[in-house]
């Protein structure tokens, strides 16, 4: 049996059936890591010993019948902005180069209790700020489909690890597309849940009102199973005020239904015929329209419509995300943990030097932007205005979902850029988030699925966005597409 070709759910079944074991699966992952990691650099930290010990423990529990979870024994990777007790958590920043958390994120705890085996922590854009994983302080990650290209970001390490077979599934975090866009670029499946579905406790915050933890997997079904596991409230304590304790977290049962009668809307602004400055490439446009055709042939109703306010999403997003980030990142000051500049003699000089040396340029840019939009005299003009735009965008989606079950579009305007191409032009990079950020602004669930291949063998992803709490519908449509489409994750 070629273990690495299995999905997480298939591997879990094989382990429970005794066709393989958790340590064997982990061994296969480590062999793959030995072959590929030097080139791809998906991980910041790999915990070989801890993982082996854990795999054996889990295997024992499975054999004794104490663990029956579908993910028991399945090797996973976790983005390095999710706290892991006793395991270094860097956010790919120099600022947290020595930070070992005293507690684990609730999402990680849930997966560990289910028996998933943590292989290590994946590379990312520093503090999740970036779209290419190039802003990491620990080197770039390469796209396993074409190592001359970036894997996308900010959860680039997680997407690349899943695509490269260096784990069976991974967790990412999605503030403006950071799960979906790298999933699209690496040819795997990524899901951003409805805001509040997964507890953010233990996720190092970037934009608190936008952040959601989401799975990156090889199949839509895997995404459903992982989401079901991480969405469950862990323990009696509420640790995240924005966590909705959903009762409808049965995302997987009866997934493979047909989609006859399903109504899918494509915003016209997402598929302009001529380049309107969004940078949408011909191959991406055609791949998405090809998927639309397949949906139509399977009995879905697909039509184009006018989604309002799409032009305002990027500026509103960067205003809100930066404002929250500026405040969220204030705690990194050299006092309590993490990097500290030692040469300073006075407190405020120490703060300045620590933060000047500890943060990279993209993080600094967003802190400056965020501080500006919140400062006296600018608050109303920028931050408050952005909140108002956000509310209007949510209303525009509400109207759309009165007519459609889901909204279809590209995940990213183009396939993965070449390494080193993006950081020179930050505004262009920000505009690349055009299709994904609306879901964060409006709190909606959105799924990215491979739907084609562009130049250089690089994958193309399409995005299905649903109304709040409609993950199951998205997963159903996604599952159906997997069956009818010629493109498979990991191909």
């Amino acid at each position, binding site marked *: 049996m070629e273990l690495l070709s299995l999905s997480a759910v298939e591997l879990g079944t094989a382990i429970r059936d005794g066709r393989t074991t958790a340590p064997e699966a982990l061994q296969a992952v480590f062999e793959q890591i030995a072959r590929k990691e030097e080139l791809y650099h998906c991980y910041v930290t790999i915990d070989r010993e801890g993982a082996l010990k854990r795999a054996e423990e889990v295997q024992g529990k499975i054999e004794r019948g104490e663990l029956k979870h579908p993910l028991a024994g399945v090797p996973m990777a976790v983005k390095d902005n999710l706290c892991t007790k006793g395991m270094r958590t860097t*956010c790919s920043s120099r600022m947290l180069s020595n930070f070992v958390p*005293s*507690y684990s994120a609730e999402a990680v705890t849930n997966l560990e209790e289910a028996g998933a085996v943590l292989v290590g922590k994946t590379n990312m854009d520093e503090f999740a700020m970036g779209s290419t994983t190039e802003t990491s302080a620990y080197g770039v990650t390469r796209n396993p489909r074409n190592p001359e290209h970036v894997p996308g970001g900010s959860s680039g390490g997680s997407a690349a690890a899943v695509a490269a077979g260096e784990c069976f599934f991974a967790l990412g975090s999605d503030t403006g597309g950071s799960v979906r866009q790298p999933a699209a670029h690496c040819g795997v499946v990524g899901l951003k849940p409805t805001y509040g579905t997964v507890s953010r406790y233990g996720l190092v915050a970037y934009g608190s009102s936008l952040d959601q933890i989401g799975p990156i997997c090889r199949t839509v079904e895997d995404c459903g199973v992982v989401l079901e596991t991480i969405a469950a409230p862990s323990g009696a304590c509420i640790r995240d005020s924005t966590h909705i304790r959903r009762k409808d977290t049965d995302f997987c049962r009866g997934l493979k239904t047909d989609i006859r009668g399903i109504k899918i809307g494509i915003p016209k602004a997402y598929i302009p015929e001529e380049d309107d400055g969004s940078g949408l490439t011909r191959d991406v446009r055609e791949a998405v329209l090809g998927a639309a055709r397949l949906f139509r042939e399977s009995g879905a109703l697909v039509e184009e419509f006018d989604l309002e306010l799409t032009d305002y999403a990027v500026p509103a997003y960067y205003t809100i995300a930066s404002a929250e980030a500026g405040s969220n990142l204030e705690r990194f000051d050299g006092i309590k943990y993490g990097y500290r500049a030692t040469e300073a003699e006075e407190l405020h000089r120490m703060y300045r030097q620590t933060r000047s040396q500890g943060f990279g340029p993209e993080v600094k840019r967003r802190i400056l932007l965020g501080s500006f939009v919140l400062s006296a005299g600018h608050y109303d003009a920028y931050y408050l205005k952005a909140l108002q735009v956000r509310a209007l965008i949510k209303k525009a989606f509400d109207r759309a979902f009165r007519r459609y079950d889901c909204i279809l579009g590209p995940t990213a305007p183009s396939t993965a850029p070449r390494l080193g191409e993006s950081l020179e032009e930050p505004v262009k990079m920000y505009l690349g988030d055009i299709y994904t950020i609306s879901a964060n602004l409006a709190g909606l669930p959105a799924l990215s699925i491979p739907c084609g291949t562009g130049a250089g063998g690089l994958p193309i992803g399409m995005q299905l966005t649903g109304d709040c709490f409609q993950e199951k519908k998205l997963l159903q449509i996604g599952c159906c597409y997997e069956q009818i489409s010629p493109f498979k994750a990991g191909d």
Partner: protein
Amino acid sequence: MAKIYETVIGLEVHVELATRTKIFCGCSTAFGGRPNAHTCPVCTGMPGALPVLNRKVLEHAAAVGLAVNCTINRFCKFDRKNYFYPDNPQNYQISQLYLPVCRDGWVEIDAGEGRERKRIGIREIHMEDDAGKLIHDEEANCTLVDYNRSGVPLIEIVSEPDMRSAEEVIAYLEKLRLIIRYLGASDCKMQEGSMRADVNLSVREKGMPGFGTRTEMKNLGSFRAVTRAIESERARQVALLESGERVLQETRRWDEGKGVSYSMRSKEEAQDYRYFPDPDLAPICISDSFLEKIRAGQPELRTEKMKRYKAEYDIPEYDIEIITESRHMADLFEAVVALGSQPKKVSNWLMGETLRLLNERGMEPEELCFSPENLAKLIALTDRKTINSTVAKQVFEEMFAHNTDPERYVEEKGLTMVGDGDILRRTVEEVIRMNPKSAGDYRGGKERALGFLVGQTMKAMKGKADPAGVGELLKELLGPGRESTE
């Protein structure tokens, strides 16, 4: 002609709420404890940690708001106040700027003799978290941080600039303290920092419209410091204006030891806190039922209590004022009366011995440990003349210190008064025989001699007699006609 200046004062009062756990995490709020013993990822600002509001904090804040006649904002939010300082682990304080929990209230104060009652407006009350403590170690030349206080819940009560003198400020603070203690929302001890006041003060020529430039005074650790700081700041501002200078808008720090204040930062140096709604905390919608529950749970406050006492108990107004100054004292009073003691007698014990011992020992009424049952028993013992008042005071001291049962104590120590039985009569006769001169003096019309004989009898009885009864018996035995029968 010299100008007459008027002082205009508004107060920002911080009150530490008496919750068991912190405002945004489950850590204990207990005072003391090893540094950083009462901490967790939330109150030390660990990456990824998130706040969850302690419901009790909202209950206390709403209760205080209702008690000071505020409107409760049915939709309120928390905002972040961003500033860098090591006592603040996240480098932002979670407070309420845009939509505080309470608005537009007032309290009535009684400032000094013969003055009319006056309303002091309350602009708002908001909830926020306290900071940790920095400990500067001069020897090791370093600063240590203790986050035990980080995340302790506070409310800030912001008054309107309605006060005109230090007396009014103190009356306002006393009123707030009384109300908050009645509610059990805080112990409001200024010395321990559970109540802190910042004074905003400006002066203007009397009768002028508008306000002068104000300063904010911090670090006021007692009522005395508040009074002195107000007087000093008023004088400073008047002197500036008199010499043709301007008052600068600034924050000043009071040095109680030196009795002067120093400028901390000017308005130009004031920080931009970049307030914005905290995205980690969902807005709070206060429901009718929540508010109803708070309303129903409000204790009877002092003003109503005073009215009721006047109607229900036959005790002087002065007594009512003193007793109702503390809810604990008032509760004690009512409980003892309910056990059948006469109200005036209960009030005498509370106003006399109880207050004396509290003052002597520097204690608050809330720290009283004796039960109403025991005070009722003590009163009954004196009513039945089982013990006299001197012995009763002795028993009370014991009861005050250890909540001792007076009946058992009197019995164990053999303090029971000897009535008008044979022993007393024989002792009195013995005293008369031993003190013929005094007896003669009394018979000769010297009333004062009786006191001496009573004292001698009490001494011989080891105090276990009722002095009044002894006096009566002496009069009887020394009375006219006795001599002639011999």
